[in-house]
């Protein structure tokens, strides 16, 4: 049985800097106390501040206010579990920051489980001086994974496009930023639309659709060097890039057949393999975590619905996955074969 979830992401376009706000989290958050880290005040303040907001943003955590702490243990041995039970605290985080700018910044930290009366994690993050936020994101992901059993995403990065529409001309800016929206940097600025940015699995490259040549074309750009190239040279539109998990293949939507069809491009030898053959729209391909299946949107039933192709059985008909609602599109697989996520429009076309 597959689980279907609906994902809503609301970037606040009024601010130049991206602001991601989760307005409601888990009903039953893990209750955590963060003991003020020991070390240089300025560094400690930034690290703990970012750590708290990372955990709260995940929606899975409640962080006890510092004023509510009944005691400040300086190490695991000084923790009195009964005291923390009173405050209903499940986990305690202790740590310190050894800040030797400009040479190194190191932060060892521990997580104590109040119910088990045990230390459940002891870890050290070796940071980059001047990049304390990054260091906090690593600590936050360590806490998230230890407590929830799921990998955290605070140390990851996001790609997004900002459109500045004016009456005479427009600017389209492709940005990369930390998962919390901080540390925003421009990857591409264009006078024409940019859509569908996609990370390569090693996060060193991105693929995206740019209209700079006058029609939709897929480019690959090296994030570190800024080098970019058109993935294919032809006279037709190309769109919807998605990287295979090993980074060697790129699935694309090609329009050379007079209609949107999905192909797989081998990035080394530029060989193309056609995946779909239908007179209706087939687009928005995405790869399963093990690379053996492709999920895509097709209009073959009369409205957009999600379908799946098994790459090990290329000659069989794609199987339809969604039946409820008349607009289910742009699906992607969850890791560990837990299901798929996709935006869905209800019958009244109000929600995306």
């Amino acid at each position, binding site marked *: 049985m597959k689980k279907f979830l609906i994902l809503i992401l609301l970037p606040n376009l009024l601010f130049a800097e991206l602001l991601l706000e989760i307005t409601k989290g888990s009903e039953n958050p893990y209750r955590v106390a963060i003991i003020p880290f020991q070390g240089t005040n300025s560094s400690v303040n930034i690290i703990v501040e970012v750590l708290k907001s990372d955990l709260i943003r995940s929606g899975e955590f409640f962080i006890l206010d510092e004023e509510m702490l009944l005691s400040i243990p300086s190490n*695991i041995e000084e923790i009195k579990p009964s005291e923390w039970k009173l405050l209903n605290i499940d986990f305690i985080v202790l740590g310190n920051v050894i800040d030797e700018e400009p040479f190194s910044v190191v932060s*060892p930290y521990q997580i104590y*489980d109040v119910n088990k009366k*045990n*230390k*459940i*994690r*002891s*870890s*050290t*993050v*070796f*940071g*980059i001086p001047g*990049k304390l936020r*990054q260091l906090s994101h690593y600590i936050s992901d360590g806490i998230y994974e*230890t407590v929830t059993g799921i990998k955290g995403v605070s*140390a990851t990065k996001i790609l997004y496009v900002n459109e500045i529409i004016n009456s005479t001309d427009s600017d389209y800016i492709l940005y990369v930023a930390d998962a919390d929206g901080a540390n925003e*940097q421009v*990857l*591409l*600025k*264009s*006078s*024409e*639309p940019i*859509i*569908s940015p996609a990370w390569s699995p090693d*996060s*060193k490259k991105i693929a995206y659709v740019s*209209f*700079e040549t*006058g029609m*939709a074309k897929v480019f690959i750009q090296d*994030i*570190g*060097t*800024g080098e*970019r190239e058109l993935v294919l040279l032809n006279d037709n*539109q190309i*769109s*919807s890039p998605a990287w295979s998990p090993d980074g060697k293949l790129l699935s694309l*939507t090609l*329009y050379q057949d*007079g*209609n*949107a069809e999905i192909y797989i491009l081998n990035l080394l030898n530029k060989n193309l393999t056609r995946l779909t053959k239908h007179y209706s*729209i087939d*687009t*928005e391909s995405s790869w399963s975590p093990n690379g053996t299946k492709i999920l895509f*949107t097709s*209009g073959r039933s009369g*409205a*957009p619905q999600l379908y799946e192709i098994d790459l090990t059985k290329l000659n069989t008909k794609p199987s339809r996955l969604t039946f409820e609602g008349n*607009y289910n*599109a*742009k699906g992607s697989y969850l890791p560990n074969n837990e299901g798929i996520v996709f*935006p869905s429009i209800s019958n009244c*076309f109000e929600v*995306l």
Partner: protein
Amino acid sequence: MTSNNKSIISYSFIGLFIASCSSVQVTEEAVYEDSIQSIEVSSKRAESSTPTESKAVLANATVYFEFDSFNLSSRSIQALKSITMLMQDNSEIEITISGHADERGTREYNLALGQRRAESVADYIELKGISRSRLTIKSYGEEMPMIQGSNERSWARNRRAEIN
């Protein structure tokens, strides 16, 4: 660095000792940060390769579509008839057909939908005896709305194919 490594090793021993019944994760991580290059492209939109002076007669029209549809309405067909007649009488006219979608739905599906709308227009014109080589087809999906706004009136104006 070596002293740090030593302290980690001793941590792990303490960890195993205290938590003999449950496991303790003892790890080390180094923050990894890529360098990032930003680049800028600007393009003058080359709408037509034909020099303007040779275009004595201009073929311009906009036709509109229903939600998630690329069928031509009878009104659209009237507009396309006059375009086709113009092109029959003026063999030098070449046109670009740009398909568009409203903001609802996903960007890539809308890009494909806009392309289908442009194709519908092209198919009709071709059916009336105009060579496909005189037609350039493209889609902007939902990226170039004619008017801004999230209401039925704006959406109806934005679901279109522009001929010029």
